């Protein structure tokens, strides 16, 4: 075990996979000479050269499509979006090309490509730079969606995503990059896609979440503990594939569920999980499932308003109390 930041964990995963497979390359804005806008690709240009670590023009649609074409031809591209907010310009190539190609060609063209970058809000970046984008990718069959919340998960899941033969939207977070945590040294440390992780054990209520919200959920669980309430905190880690068994297990255990997500409520990830739970564990539910989400507004700039817009431990605690009828 080594202690490293989420950023370093991603960097290590990229380095190891690029060493392991010469067909893996990284392309995106500022990834090479600038070491990445968030320094995730620090040192990779030096180590792998400018054919494998490539600064692109600000042409999201173009370089995303270039990556998809390269994957069709047999390479394993890692396409970095400076943030997923900018990927709205590229989503046609992700959904209409990458996610559908294997099907439209009846298996002739697997699509081993990773689209990665931060999703959701950082601090005071306002409406056009703060959107959580999971739903836009998880909705479509053919696209996997991975949302690591810790350094270890970041490393193990990025390596798995690069080795996966389907398109993966790999969603990070600006506010996670500096977060430190223990990461196994092992070069072949892989976390398979589709395995949720019970980040905390408790039997009174299930807090299910993904991505950077696990930290909000864990804070809430600590507060609840003071009131003698023990929460299960289930981190889905990947939202497609989805570890439904783990979800059903925690529901069977606690019979009460709160879903916490960074994004907007309407047709969000929580809506999907909630409707699956009520469908598949109807008789286990002692209370309606509640969702804690971003306020249903574009993200404001002002510090105070932004704080109010984001899911908070307070709101999670309150939701848990409600499902516990406290």
């Amino acid at each position: 075990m080594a202690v490293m930041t989420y950023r370093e964990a991603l960097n290590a995963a990229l380095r190891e996979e690029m060493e392991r497979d010469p067909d893996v390359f990284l392309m995106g804005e500022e990834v090479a000479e600038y070491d990445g806008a968030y320094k995730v690709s620090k040192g990779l240009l030096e180590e792998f050269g400018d054919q494998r670590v490539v600064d692109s023009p600000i042409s999201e649609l173009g370089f995303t499509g270039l990556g998809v074409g390269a994957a069709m031809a047999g390479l394993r591209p890692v396409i970095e979006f400076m943030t997923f907010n900018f990927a709205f310009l590229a989503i046609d190539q992700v959904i209409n090309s990458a996610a559908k190609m294997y099907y439209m060609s009846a298996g002739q063209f697997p699509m081993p490509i990773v689209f990665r970058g931060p999703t959701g809000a950082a601090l005071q970046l306002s409406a056009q730079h703060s959107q959580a984008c999971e739903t836009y990718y998880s909705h479509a069959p053919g696209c996997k969606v991975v949302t690591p919340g810790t350094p270890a998960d970041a490393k193990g899941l990025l390596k798995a995503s690069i080795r996966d033969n389907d398109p993966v939207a790999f969603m990070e977070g600006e506010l996670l990059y500096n977060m430190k945590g223990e990461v196994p040294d092992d070069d072949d440390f892989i976390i398979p896609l589709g395995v949720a992780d019970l980040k905390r054990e408790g039997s009174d209520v299930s807090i299910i979440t993904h991505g950077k919200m696990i930290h909000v959920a864990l804070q809430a669980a600590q507060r609840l503990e003071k009131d003698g309430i023990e929460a299960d905190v289930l981190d889905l880690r990947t939202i497609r594939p989805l570890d439904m068994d783990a979800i059903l297990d925690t529901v069977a255990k606690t019979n009460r569920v709160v879903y916490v997500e960074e994004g907007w409520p309407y047709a969000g990830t929580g809506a999907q999980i909630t409707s699956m739970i009520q469908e598949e564990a109807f008789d286990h539910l002692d209370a309606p499932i509640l969702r804690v989400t971003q306020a249903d507004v574009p993200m404001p700039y002002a510090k105070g308003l932004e704080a109010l817009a984001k899911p908070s431990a307070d709101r999670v605690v309150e939701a848990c109390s409600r499902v516990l009828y406290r």
Partner: protein
Amino acid sequence: MAETKTRRKSGGNHKKESVAALEKHGIDEALALQLLSDMLLYRRFEEKAEEAYAIGKIGGFCHLHIGQEAGAAGCIRPLAEDDYVITAYREHTQAIAKGIDPKAVMAELYGRVDGPSRGKGGSMHIYGGDVRFMGGHGIVGGQVPLAAGIAWKIKYKKEDSVVVCFMGDAAVNQGAFHEALNMAAVWELPAIFVVENNEYGMGTAFSRISETDVAERALSYGIPSSSVNGQDVLETYAAFRDLAEEVRGGGGPRFVDLQTYRFRGHSMSDPVSGTYRSTEEVEERKKKDDPIAMLRDTLFGAGLLDQDKLEELDAEARALASEAADFADASAHPAAEELFHHVWAEENHGRLFFDGRERNG
């Protein structure tokens, strides 16, 4: 079938011109006849598809290449086996030109399991991974960045093949075109971007939605651009033979304004003419600009073809087209379970399908 009726210009003058045309382009008798056979096959194949569509054997959108066949034969014949081709949805003939069996292409149009996509792709999505035909794409302009990616792979792997990327004239107004051409230029990617300029995007004349000509649309990227008569298969062949060599030599990308004309409606569900172009215009162009008739006359003139030979070649083309249709008709419809095949290349732990089938078994 105007294109097989004699319209021989008499006089030795025509002979000289015809021989000169072949020599100028460095195309010998065998190759010239091959190009004729190619185009006859494409014409007859598309006519078969037209028939099949009319009787409901083919559904959805079906875009024919009739009138534009030189854009398949002339552009793709000169390529090497390991060169790549990628294009849009008007691609039946180009798929055949790159080496997919006409039988398989027709089976795909019929939505049957012997199609390259087992009937799941249809007319707009024909792929031949084994012959490096990369589809078959339905989003206007969407294939252009994909082509840049294929060219990227060629360069990355230090191969010496090229990718030919076809698009329609209307596609040049897509942002994807702009972004891809800039990257191809900066990174000197081995790609030939070909605009099949048939003057219209559906019902919109190019001149109505663009201030400049197609050939000028590469200026901003510093990509060498040329205009080619896309109805003259000899000129087209020679141009692509030479361009492919330039690009193969590491010369960076090229841009071609391939001037052609669509003899049919935009798709089988659209009228041949109407408010956007007159019947007279279409008839005039069919007379003047039929790529098959043009080559036929040249070969007649050069004394390399006579009526009997022509009819023999045409009969072969018709036979291949009929065989393709019969084959397609005999091919099985995909079984119900195929609906769920090929969504995912790799299963993982956890659930990938969310329509309840896992649970319902």
